[in-house]
């Protein structure tokens, strides 16, 4: 456990000393801040609707699809390209620990980005009543969906040694997960397939449920198992070099 913590700390520190991370934070806050402001005007000051408008709009999904691959693209690809991955493995750290710590560092950075938006809610709470339950469930949704998207980013980073190729691959995989939602238009209400599509759809989880304050146990179970599956596959991809 202590190895995972020290590896995560090392990865986080390496993220925060790179100019790429600060550029991502700056652009993210600028774009999301502007979206937040426009959404507030769009919902005419209704703070409950503002949660759904901010954490369910097009800009939000663009950020959700693009940021995790950008943050995770260097996680394993860069280590492999520089040859430092082999050195890391010789220290006796298991493949799964390396994969998990890389994912954890990416996920923590991703969460920090979204946490940076909380001061805006703090400002709004001084003039109105913010529905804390709805905001909490929306953030829980961002964390769960983000965990899955970061895991696909780590997998893509393990598959290729080029960071940009890794980012492209991860974005494509995340886009696939995102587009599942639109399969629902092929089915009629009441169809079993439709319910399964809703079970896997990130758009449904965030847009129809969590940003409205509805928490369904299916959501953490799906995103939790998906994340574990992706990390498991990543570990197997790393182990491949031994066989």
């Amino acid at each position, binding site marked *: 456990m202590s190895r995972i913590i020290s590896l995560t700390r090392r990865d986080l520190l390496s993220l925060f000393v790179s100019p790429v991370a600060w550029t991502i934070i700056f652009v993210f806050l600028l774009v999301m*801040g502007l979206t937040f402001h426009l959404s*507030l005007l769009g919902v005419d000051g209704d703070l409950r609707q503002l949660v759904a408008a901010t954490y369910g709009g097009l800009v939000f999904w663009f950020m959700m699809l693009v940021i995790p691959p950008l943050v995770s693209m260097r996680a394993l690809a860069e280590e492999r390209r520089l040859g430092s991955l082999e050195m890391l493995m010789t220290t006796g750290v298991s493949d799964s620990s390396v994969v998990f710590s890389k994912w954890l560092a990416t996920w923590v950075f991703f969460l920090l980005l979204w946490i940076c938006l909380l001061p805006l809610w703090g400002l709004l709470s001084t003039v109105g009543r913010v529905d*804390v339950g709805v905001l909490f469930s929306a953030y829980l949704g961002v964390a769960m969906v983000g965990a899955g998207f970061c895991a696909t980013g780590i997998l893509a980073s393990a598959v290729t040694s080029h960071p940009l190729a890794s980012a492209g691959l991860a974005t494509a995989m995340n886009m696939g997960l995102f587009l599942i939602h639109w399969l629902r238009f092929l089915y009629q209400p009441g169809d079993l397939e439709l*319910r399964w599509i809703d079970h896997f759809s990130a758009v449904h989880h965030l847009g129809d449920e969590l940003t409205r304050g509805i928490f369904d146990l299916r959501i953490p179970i799906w995103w939790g198992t*998906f994340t574990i599956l992706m990390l498991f596959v990543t570990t*197997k991809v790393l182990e491949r070099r031994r066989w």
Partner: protein
Amino acid sequence: MSDFINQRRRKVRVHVTLQLLLMLWIVWVINVWAFHDSVRVDWSQGATMEVTADDRQLLAALPRAVDVLVPLDLDPSAAGRVRARVLTQALRWLDELSHSAPQSLRLPISVDVNRAGERWEVLRAQRGLEADAVNRIHFFCGDQRLSLDVDDLALIREPSPLEPEQLARIEVDRVRESVEAALRQVVREQLTEIRISQGSGEPPLRGARGASLVTLCDDLEARGARVEGVDLGLDDGLPADTDLLIVVGGGVGRFEPLRASVSRSIDRHLEAGGGVLVLLPSTGICGWEETMAAAGISVLPGLVAEISPLPGGVTRASYVVTGTRFDPFHPITASLARQRTMVRFTPSRSLQVTEPATALLATGPGAWLEREPGSPRRQRQETPAPQIVAAAAQVGAGRMVVVGNWNTVLPGSWRGDARRFLLACSDWASGRNLLPAGAGREPVSHRIELDERLRRSFFWTSTAILPGCALLGGLLVAWARRRDS
């Protein structure tokens, strides 16, 4: 040696493939379990979307699957947006219920009639809906159909000529209660049988919209009733399967007292637990005086007049009467009493009630009784306010409601609070309470006033201060790195 290594590689590949398949299988099993046995919680303030044990019991008790269709054609005005919000909330509640019991209540289908016109036409033909049956929630169970209007789902206050600056807003949210009542009603095997008395001088049930009872009939049918006319002047009595008899006007002054055979059949109808809703004519007798007197309700001669405010702060005495005082304990008016409801009559008769009848609705303090209607003018000797304009009585097992005027059921006046009040009267009198008494809650507002100062400070915080902090952090890190190197 090479063969040995190749053999080991093959074995490892098989093992890894098996591990991946096993992992996929575990993920699948866990998700199948979660798919069938999930827990849903509403974390929002007020938990308005929390499905309670009672709701689950109701859904489990539905004998057949219920389909829901919501055609939307909303205007972009402020009032239209509020109505859209009510319908959206109802759709979300139906979604929640459907998640609990997808086999009993199918996911609601909402269709924008402007954007998906062809789909709407197909669905309309399938379900036999009218072209103007939009902005309603239609429930279908077998051949049964029941529709809820936005006014059934919430009490909405809209700007009026007297309060033009007032914003459209939801005063009472009764989405849950109305949907629950609709689900209970739509699965009933039998329709509520309603007969509307067709005396002389009454408008026809169907026909040209302006001078008929077509909107009243449509509304009653949409609420799960079968509506037919009955001519008490010609027919021998009421059909035995009648649940509610609505008397509209009763002949407008030319109606003869009921024949003995008809009186007997109405007495039998009331004894058997049936209901009668009498909407009085503006003048003269309605032929029901004896039956009403037996229930403790009598009609005073003359009309109620009232001093009404007009735009611009002036007032005028007229026969436009507004009923504002509701009996807070009667099932019909218990929920209306808490909601600043106002029912307008043009004009209204004045009622007098004795036991066992109770006054349902009375006017405010500015009303009086003009015994000889002409130009209304308040004089000292005239009967003081409040004037009773609606009353109800339990007659044996049956129920009787008398309302001061029938004009309200004409298409031009059949809307808003008056429609809600009269539908509540017909529900209670028929013994099928579609709108439960005492229902609804005030929605919690999360709206903030977006004044210029707040807009400006929020804009600069969101687009300059927060990103600026990130920029500053990045510059500090770059400076520290350069210093260390």
